[in-house]
């Protein structure tokens, strides 16, 4: 049953937690503890990443079902079991989480100097929550991890964040919690109706369309905030701007994917009718998100805020793709989620490199960086291009697939998405021009050092992925092909059955 022969997913989930407990037991002088905490966190996350590569090699791409399944008694009398497993939709997100965590630890190596031990503990706990969430096959287990993310992230933003960190962390926490508790009620309703919260079992449970609408709205409250979709996105710029660099990377790289993952995992398969009914509304919100936030991004003075708004725009493409309900759209959405995870994470790291040196995120503070830091400028350009979906880089295949899929259904929608791509090119290139090119007007910039070996090491895997995903998208698409096809077939069958019944 379990391809790895041992409980791989549980190990991936709880090993970081064990590392966190170990770090908490460290004692000694502050400086020694800080160093040990850094190394312990790095090794833990690297070991977790190495283990997670088993998923990459042993995952059976032809099987649309759940693999590496584990099941333990938990609250079995009430229909809740500890059930873990991954399918084509979730497997790469587990890998994305395990990849980004060591990168974040490495990126915070020098940037975080206060309370290093607590910082590393928070990141490892965060990794546990992220991996557990993507691997959970029980709705309550999923919810536990989904909500559990809030605690470490709240602390990361609030303790190590910028000037308005308190405001940003509270907004992040309460906004997300408000959406999630409504989802909890929907989960409880599903539990009541089906007598179980096991996700594969719930897939077999037909829900009357009238009930679907309510459940969909409750799920929407949670996932739309998490994605975030316009107009529920206002927490994101604040959280991104105030979070420390690595916090922004995780936020953009993984946490934003949780909402879209929720739509794919729950809304579509469980609520086919409501999803179809609400699709036009989602299109509208997505298009508004793409166009409006792109325009907002154009006007930003703060680098992190600009990238935060660009995230909202990219996630608009993702939600658009999900609600086209065809194979291209879903594959494109998943691909965009992955590429956005890599690219926007890398962009935040790029901002972090400058911020560590100058302690300013203001675009006007820079100019002519390309002359001073050539290799940095090259890396930054690569990710800028990937973000504007230049063919051959990570951003392109996903967005293309989504636009093609949208075109099939509704050319106007496709036009909106394409408009977003053009605007995306505008604000990203404008950002790059202002930061990297032009005359050097600020004299103190002349003394900046180019990237250190550690920073090269941080970017290396991301550069590799950004190019790999662009040149050979099929490597990644092949992971979710079978699962996505099965999802689409089931969705159409559910709608078809209802149509027949209605005749």
């Amino acid at each position, binding site marked *: 049953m379990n391809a790895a022969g041992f409980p791989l997913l549980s190990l991936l989930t709880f090993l970081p937690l064990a590392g966190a407990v170990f770090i908490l037991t460290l004692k000694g002088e502050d400086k020694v503890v800080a160093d040990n905490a850094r190394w312990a966190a790095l090794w833990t996350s690297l070991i977790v990443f190495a283990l997670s590569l088993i998923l990459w090699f042993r995952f059976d791409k032809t099987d649309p079902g759940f693999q590496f399944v584990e099941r333990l*008694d*938990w*609250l*079995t*009398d*009430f229909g809740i079991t500890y059930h873990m497993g991954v399918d084509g939709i979730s497997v790469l997100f587990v890998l994305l989480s395990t990849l980004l965590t060591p990168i974040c630890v490495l990126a915070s190596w020098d940037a975080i100097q206060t*309370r290093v031990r*607590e910082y590393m503990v928070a990141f490892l706990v965060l990794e546990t929550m992220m991996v557990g969430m993507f691997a959970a096959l029980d709705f*309550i287990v999923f*919810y*536990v*991890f989904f*909500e*559990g993310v*809030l*605690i470490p992230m*709240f*602390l990361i933003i*609030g*303790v190590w964040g910028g000037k308005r*960190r*308190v405001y940003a*962390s*509270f907004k992040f*926490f*309460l906004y997300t*919690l*408000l959406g999630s*508790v*409504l989802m*909890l*009620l929907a989960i*409880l*309703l599903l*539990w*009541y109706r089906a007598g179980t919260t096991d996700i594969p079992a719930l897939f077999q449970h037909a829900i009357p369309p009238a009930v679907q609408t309510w459940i969909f709205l409750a799920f929407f409250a949670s996932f739309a905030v998490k994605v975030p979709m316009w107009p529920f996105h206002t927490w994101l710029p604040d959280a991104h701007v105030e979070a420390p660099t690595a916090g922004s990377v995780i936020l953009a790289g993984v946490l934003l994917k949780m909402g879209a993952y929720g739509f794919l995992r729950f809304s579509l398969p469980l609520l086919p009718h409501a999803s179809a009914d609400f699709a036009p509304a989602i299109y509208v919100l997505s298009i508004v998100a793409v166009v409006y936030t792109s325009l907002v991004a154009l006007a930003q003075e703060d680098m992190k805020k600009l990238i935060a708004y660009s995230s909202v725009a990219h996630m608009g493409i993702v939600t658009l793709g999900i609600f086209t309900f065809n194979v291209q759209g879903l594959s494109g959405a998943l691909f965009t989620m992955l590429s956005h995870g890599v690219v926007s994470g890398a962009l935040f790291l790029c901002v972090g490199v400058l911020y560590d040196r100058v302690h300013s995120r203001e675009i006007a503070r820079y100019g002519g960086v390309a002359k001073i830091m050539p290799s940095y400028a090259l890396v930054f350009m690569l990710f800028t291009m990937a973000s504007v979906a230049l063919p051959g880089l990570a951003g392109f295949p996903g967005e293309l697939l989504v636009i093609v899929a949208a075109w099939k259904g509704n050319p106007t929608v496709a036009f909106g998405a394409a408009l977003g791509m053009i605007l995306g090119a505008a604000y990203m290139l404008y950002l790059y021009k202002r930061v990297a090119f032009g005359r050097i007007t600020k004299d103190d910039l002349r003394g900046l050092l180019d990237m250190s070996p550690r920073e090269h090491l941080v970017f290396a895997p991301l550069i590799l992925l950004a190019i790999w995903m662009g040149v050979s998208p099929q490597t990644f698409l092949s992971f979710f092909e079978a699962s996505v096809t099965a999802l689409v077939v089931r969705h159409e069958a559910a709608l078809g059955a209802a149509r027949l019944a209605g005749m």
Partner: protein
Amino acid sequence: MNWTLALPELVLALSGLAILGIGVLPKRNTHFACAMAAVGAFLLAAALAIGAPEGSAFGGQIVSDAFTRFAKVLILIGAAAGVVLSLDYNAREGLDRFEYPVLLVFATLGMMVMVSANDLMALYVGLELLSLSLYVVAAFNRDDERSAEAGLKYFVLGALASGLLLYGSSLTYGFTGTTNFDRIADALSDPSKASAGLVVGMVFVIVGLAFKVSAVPFHMWTPDVYEGAPTPVTAFFAAAPKVAAIGLFARVLGGPFGDLAGQWQQVIVLISLLSMVLGAFAAIGQSNIKRLMAYSSIGHVGYALVGLAAASEAGMRGLLVYMAIYLLMNLGAFAVLVAMRRQGRAVERVEDLAGLARTDLSMAVWMAIFMFSMAGIPPLAGFFGKMFVFKAAIDAGLWTLAIVGVLSSVVSAFYYLRIVKVMFFDETAGALDPRPASVSFVMTASGVFTTLFFLYPAPLVAAAQAAVAALLG
């Protein structure tokens, strides 16, 4: 006549008298010895309660079943922790008098009689024994104005509540001709016999109990008493008596008045709604942390009553699970409050915790865990309590209650987060005094439970299930 059923109560009563003797006779201060003896008595009583046979005794006055076992164990844990928390605090505040543990033993005896009562008379006797002891301990710091005020206020309002309860009981007796719970249930098995007078009597009983659990709109005494009483007393108030009173609520409404569920359900729904909303909003503006915890406990009673409002087996189970989790995490949070002293003086403003993460990280981490747990954030224990009661509410179709409940839990998350913010984000306001081992013990034990409950929740839920099965027959 099977007096062995009452063995835990008898042991506790005799221990109370013996400890009183130990306290009075020697000339030196025997506070510590008495306190230790009280803890020992609680543990012994708990062991006896776990092993107690089932049945009813003293002419049906008291019963012993899975429900009483569940409630008694919780009460005794709460009481023992209450004594342990008071050890250091009382010594430092000059309150180390042997009467304190003795009073707590008698209060606990009252609670145990309450939960095992199967008759309105036994119920009242237990409740009064509890209340009288609590009035005294609330004013235990008698030279302190606020403490004296707390005691007096609690006495006046508590006496009013007892009067209402007694009036309700007498109406019930008048209309059914019996005070025995089983007979009342028999009399009401045909709901057409439920006359208006009886319903009025039942509502009075509910009001009396609502006073004791401090549910809105009968909560007015809570913030003042919580603030004025010495902190370990507040810790005790918020733990064991709350569980006992909620347990009594479940017993009375589920047992004798079980067939009138249609009548009492709407009352419970209303007080539950009001408690949740008031507990969420009123705590926001508080700067005194004891007052804040008072409103927080009002809110928690509201959540627990959601389970009761569902008037179903699942609801009762949720109620018991909620109270067990509430008791254990609350003890930890109050342990932190008891440990809040700076330069030898007890401090109780929220700001006094500022920067605790820098000066005492482990206490700050535990407190943050308690706060997140009270806000209902998974994977901490508090989440599971909320999950079970809301599940019951949804099963019963009480959507208003469920939606208002989760929304007010978001509001209340704000002030729990504020405490975390003060501890972790703010600059330090100076280190707190080193905390005593007794407080650390309670805090750590409670923290470990709160954090790791999610690993193995089944035993507690199963015990609650067995208790409910006994309660509803």
